[in-house]
């Protein structure tokens, strides 16, 4: 782990109450016991869900599964750092954040089963936007949205309970895309209330982060006049404190912020991928020893949290997994005419005509439509 990363929890799960952490520690002290337990619960439950979803994919139930395995701390810390009024633009791996913001994991299952291209209405789900599969695109949507927040006067009023901010997730590979650069340019130009949250999980499918950049990626931000920090992304508390501060600075009108969380994709890129083709056992071993959930469990145990809690979390995970499995197996194919729904908002003659044609055509087979 690079030494320039902010770390509040040691790999052994001990809170590092050092001088240099002085700025961040009050944010941690302010967390209630319940909040700390929730950090763990969300990580562990989604990890169990993640495994189940992978299994469902292998059993032919999903087109694809994208695991968040290993990145739970970066996600839970940043996800809880966002306030209720904030708006979040994920990439496609932020299952923990989605859950925090109230998205039923089944919506993600349906997306990756191929039932839907979206799945939820962000406005009804904690302002958690849809997954975006084209690398980096969402960074510009987030910036535009944040421009709107600024234009609406919904930030920088001085009231952190009401001022809005925007949080956008992307990966190390994404930093190479022109769109992410343009998003930084626009964000800096309009001084948007926005945090760029980079999960550097060290790989873009089979390509190591060194191919994307030979310099620490958080430094990218400064070149755009955007303040950037690096955090140990397997440390949920550091991810929380740094993102919380960045969001609060952004919402206060101090301009956009950039956070790089150093973490690791412990699993395959997706279920289509075979990481043994391109990476070392040793690397995986190192990171397995730095598992973010194990670290947080050690931290909680150090604070006296006992087996009961961990057992209840495990049970919740099992329940969710069973529920997801049951609900996945019960899914039916969407109706054929769904292909025409909402291509446009206003009526459209060609869509209407093709829809009518399809109905008539299917009816000609005896009404299987």
């Amino acid at each position, binding site marked *: 782990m690079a030494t320039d990363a902010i770390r509040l929890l040691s790999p052994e799960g001990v809170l590092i109450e050092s001088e240099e952490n002085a700025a961040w520690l009050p944010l941690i002290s302010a967390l209630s016991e319940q909040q700390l337990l929730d950090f763990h619960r969300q990580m562990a439950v989604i990890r169990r869900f993640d495994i189940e979803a992978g299994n469902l994919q292998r059993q032919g139930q999903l087109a694809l599964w994208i695991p968040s395995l290993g990145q739970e701390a970066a996600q839970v810390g940043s996800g809880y750092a966002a306030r209720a009024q904030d708006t979040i633009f994920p990439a496609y791996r932020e299952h923990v954040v989605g859950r925090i913001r109230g998205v039923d994991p089944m919506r993600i299952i349906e997306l990756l089963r191929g039932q839907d*291209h979206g799945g939820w209405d962000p*406005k*009804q789900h904690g302002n958690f936007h849809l997954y975006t599969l084209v690398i980096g695109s969402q960074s510009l949507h987030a*910036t535009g*949205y944040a421009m709107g927040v600024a234009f609406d006067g919904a930030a920088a009023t001085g009231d952190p309970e009401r001022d809005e901010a925007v949080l956008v997730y992307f990966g190390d590979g994404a930093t190479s895309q*022109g*769109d992410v650069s343009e998003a930084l340019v626009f964000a800096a130009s309009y001084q948007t209330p926005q945090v760029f949250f980079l999960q550097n999980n060290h790989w873009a499918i089979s390509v190591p982060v060194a191919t994307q950049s030979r310099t620490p990626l958080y430094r990218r931000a400064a070149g755009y006049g955007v303040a950037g920090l690096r955090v140990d992304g397997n440390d949920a508390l550091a991810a929380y404190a740094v993102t919380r501060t960045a969001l609060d600075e952004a919402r206060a009108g101090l301009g956009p912020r950039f956070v790089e969380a150093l973490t690791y994709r412990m699993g395959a890129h997706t279920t289509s991928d075979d990481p043994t083709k391109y990476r070392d056992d040793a690397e995986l071993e190192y990171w397995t020893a730095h598992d973010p959930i194990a670290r947080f469990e050690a931290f909680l145990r150090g604070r006296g949290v006992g087996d009961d809690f961990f057992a209840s979390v495990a049970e919740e995970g099992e329940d969710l997994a069973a529920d997801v499995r049951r609900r996945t197996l019960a899914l039916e194919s969407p109706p054929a005419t769904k292909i025409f729904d909402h291509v*446009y908002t206003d009526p459209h*003659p060609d869509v209407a005509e093709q829809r009518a044609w399809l109905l008539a055509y299917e009816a000609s087979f005896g009404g299987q439509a």
Partner: protein
Amino acid sequence: MTTMTMAKALNEGLRAAMRADEKVLLMGEDIGTLGGVFRVTEGLKSEFGPRRVLDTPLAESGIVGSAIGLAMRGYRPVCEIQFDGFVYPAFDQITSQLAKQTYRHGGAQSFPVVIRIPYGGHIGAVEHHQESPEAYFAHTAGLRVVAPATPHDAYWMIQEAIAGNDPVVFLEPKSRYWPKGEVDLSASGAALHASRVVRRGTDVTLIGHGAMVATLLDAAELAAAEGVSAEVVDLRSLSPIDYAPILESVRRTGRAVVVQEAPQQVSVGSEIAATVGERAFYSLQSPVLRVSGYDTPFPPAKLEGVYLPDVDRILEAVDRALAH
């Protein structure tokens, strides 16, 4: 009725749209203080301020991508792309994002983003400043694509495009920015996608859009002098295409010539020829002919006269259509 240029009509249309709905905002390169390189947005920044008329950084993907985000926030962004040839850096955001967002959101959210593109030739400009990219957008489901041919149409069509709830690629025939025409500021206009018969005729149907409409009318005039009665249809909308007036016309004339500045291959003209060929099959007395730009890059300005369809090339096609 008042007389004005298309540039001014667009300016008035944008002004009216911005007055009608404070969520309408304009964004683009040089559109604010300068008023746009064609002055279409002149005076709007001083009337509506820098938060509604944005001089953006120089990045087209950034413009369209952030417009999508603004639409998610409830805005109705109208983006200006400075010239036709500079829309391609935004192609991914237009094609994979803007065009598909409504679908992806299952209708939970609309994307009323208008992308204004001054397009087409006849202005003797350097490379990338004279292209007709409509085929790329007309092929893309989720977009609407329109192009006014007159100041009056420009005035109401831009307002309709902004008031609608879907992404619209709004192609402005830049060589028609300066000729004046009658504009009825009180008329509400037709439906955005209605094509219109601009000249009645009985022997052949001439179909086109944008700057080509004026050329078709000139051609029809000359044809009349030679005893050929040409009907002229202004498409106005390239996606969807309003075929009813076209088919009605071709069923009467039995002959059609489609004219466009764009290269011919896999073009809007191809689509019209295919569809007319299919739907008016029994009425056609000769094949639907196309007069287009050649299948080459848009040439240097000194050669645009060779490249762009003109009255002579249109009449040559009319002759061929009638010879069958």
